[in-house]
């Protein structure tokens, strides 16, 4: 494997990791505040559909993004209503949202577009396109030289390869996701809101007796989760791919949850965990069959890798992960 291939796989890793990372950070906010969020999957799916649908109809990807965020926030609100206001079971509420999203997206897609549960393919202006950073070799250079882009990059030096292939050329949402990591860390550990958010996930009674609203904090947390899932979904449908297809999240919400546990609810670790899962997905995409000592490993094995890792992590093989102490419990004032 040459250096350029490696860079290309890593580049693909970044793209695959982006929706995972956004969803994982969404889960981080929610669970740090003591609300289990198994509905990441549903929120992403809903956001993917509405962003693609609105982008397809209006031709404006930013409107699409807004619609995706709105749809995801709506589900977050439902989750909050069920699990915060009415103190319902957070897992059941989340599962219900996933079912709702899975059915509703296909149903509305069929009713609006009649293309078998998908949205029309998005054209350039309906998508988030790659941003070319300064000094990077991109499509415009390739056009000017009249040669394929990969050839140009292949001839460049190592630093230029890394810069042009790995760092440059992603859509704005990828950079947003990357910036969210330090931002999340800063909010959690350097602001008043973060202190209270973490406290409410550990001991809501402490927050309550300190005169701060437990409800308000928890709604704020799942609101943030809604926005992040919205961006993740929009990226799937308008950045990574060109349009919505049925069940396009394909378990990413659950993988994000696994990554969250793997990361032990810490932002920087979440980045690492999501990159690991992204790498597995990228490897599966790139190497559809591998020859290992004369035995050819079928493509299905590669495709299954991220999910296998999810199971392994959830089964607790990766050290002891202690979740926020009040996670999953509705807060009831005691007498």
């Amino acid at each position, binding site marked *: 494997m040459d250096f350029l291939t490696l860079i290309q796989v890593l580049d693909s890793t970044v793209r695959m990791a982006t929706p995972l990372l956004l969803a994982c950070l969404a889960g981080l906010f929610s669970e740090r505040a003591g609300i289990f969020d198994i509905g990441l999957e549903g929120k992403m799916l809903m956001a993917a559909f509405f962003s693609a649908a609105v982008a397809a109809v209006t031709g404006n990807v930013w409107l699409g993004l807004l619609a995706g965020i709105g749809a995801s926030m709506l589900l977050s609100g439902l989750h909050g209503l069920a699990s915060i206001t009415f103190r319902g079971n957070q897992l059941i509420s989340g599962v219900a949202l996933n079912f709702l999203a899975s059915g509703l997206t296909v149903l509305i897609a069929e009713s609006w577009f009649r293309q078998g549960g998908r949205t029309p393919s998005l054209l350039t202006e309906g998508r988030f396109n790659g941003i070319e950073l300064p000094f990077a070799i991109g499509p415009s250079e390739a056009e000017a030289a009249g040669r394929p882009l990969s050839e140009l990059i292949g001839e460049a030096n190592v630093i230029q390869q890394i810069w042009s292939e790995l760092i440059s050329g992603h859509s704005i949402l990828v950079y947003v996701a990357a910036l969210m990591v330090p931002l999340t860390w800063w909010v959690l550990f350097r602001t*008043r809101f*973060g*202190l*209270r958010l973490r406290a409410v996930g550990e*001991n809501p009674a402490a927050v309550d*007796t*300190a005169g701060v609203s437990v409800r308000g904090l928890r709604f704020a947390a799942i609101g943030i989760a809604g926005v992040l899932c919205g961006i993740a979904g929009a990226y799937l449908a308008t950045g990574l791919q060109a349009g919505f297809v049925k069940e396009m999240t394909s378990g990413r919400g659950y993988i994000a949850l696994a990554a969250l546990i793997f990361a032990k609810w810490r932002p920087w670790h979440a980045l690492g965990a999501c990159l690991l899962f992204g790498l597995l997905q990228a490897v599966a995409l790139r190497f559809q069959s591998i020859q290992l000592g004369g035995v050819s490993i079928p493509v299905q094995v590669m495709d299954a890798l991220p999910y296998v890792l999810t199971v392994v992590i959830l089964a607790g093989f990766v050290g002891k992960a202690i979740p926020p*102490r009040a996670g999953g419990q509705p807060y009831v004032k005691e*007498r």
Partner: protein
Amino acid sequence: MTAPAIELKGISKAFGPVQANKDISISVQPGTIHGIIGENGAGKSTLMSILYGFYKADKGEIWIKGTKTEIPDSQAAIAAGIGMVFQHFKLVENFTVLENIVLGAEDSGLLMPSLSRARKELKELEEEYELYVDPDKRIDEIGVGMQQRVEILKALYRKAEILILDEPTGVLTPAEADQLFRILDRLRSEGKTIILITHKLREIMEYTDTVSVMRRGQMTATVKTAESSPEQLAELMVGRKVLLRVDKVPATPGKPILEIEKLSVVDSAGVQRVKDIDLTVRAGEILGIAGVAGNGQSELLEVLGGMRDGTGSIRINGQPLPLSGKGSDARARRHAGIAHVPEDRQREGLIMDFHAWENVAFGYHREDIYKKGLFLDNAALRADTEAKMEKFDVRPPNPWLAAKSFSGGNQQKIVVAREIERNPDLLLIGQPTRGVDIGAIEFIHQQIMELRDQGKAILLVSVELEEILSLSDRVAVMFDGKIMGERPADQTDEKELGLLMAGVAGEAA
């Protein structure tokens, strides 16, 4: 005369049909320690919750420093200068002391300036009130006594003038409790007003200036402590004369019933809870195990009761019993003549949603008297329950009532009746009067003494030193899973036991 620090006028609060507070009026002078005493369910906690904005009173007014004040939520209570130290601390365990103090009282959106200001202010408070804590330690790294200081500091940091403490000594060693009261004394001399809620008469008598007594939601009296007596207060609490001391004739210990050698217990987390214990309990004596909660007493009881595995050896009437595997379960223990009143009646002693008569049979439901062919003889069971309820004065004496519908004292009586009435050779009894009102305490203590005088062996575990001293014939103190020392009950006192409980080894242990 200055305006009262707090004045409540005609406070009433009902939860459905239950009148938790009825027309309560009370006036507390600034710079005093005011005690509020009453049995469980008398309405003390409800009253304080109203004062801290957890509940809204149905009727009545709250006046603070001469101004009428509405307290709709905790925020308003804090603004009015009220600080509360709850019985169960409201601290975030994996936060530092400093973070806990700042939480909810930050200066701005950014954390760092708040924390550094708090650090400075903490130092001043520390010097002013001699309240030392390390601000950078995490809550789960410090002991309960320290945690309580953090709660007090939290209130002071919020400029509390009135400090309410709910059962503050329940989790403390005697030495820690003494320290607490020194701090409270200091706070009083600095002009703070302190409301002390407790069910311990001794604390009221020793430390308060005035005391209010509550019974069944009503304030029955407010008196100057100096002009009152424990007997008078107890009578006001219960509504009748109460025997505060247990009548005790000297024990006549017989042959050893329970012999424990090198008993150790390791819990599921791999922590050794009981370390190489040797103990003997003889017929006709009560061995009391004293210690601060969490020093291995619970595990000791559980392993003896067959609820947990251990290593070492135990013998009952000279017969060895297995400590793990076959024959080490609770059923086998009962068969061997051990009865067990577990520490936590609501979790281990009863099934709260089941009827009283079902609860009376648990553990003994295989006995012949309850059998009718293949089935349980429910009628016999209920008759048996009624008989026990009458003998133990369980109120109301209705076998059809769910266990959770009884008061704490009556629940405990059901458990004690079930276990004592089997005529066991050995009774294991943990926290026999935790959350039990004075009237029921008196009764349960009498039952335990009677069992002893019938020549039974009793192993008593309690965190209440007074209870240990008044019931036991011998006292062993547990600390960190080990027996720190054993003393005849009439040759020791709270001070000596308190030192042992804190892990200070006595001479000739």
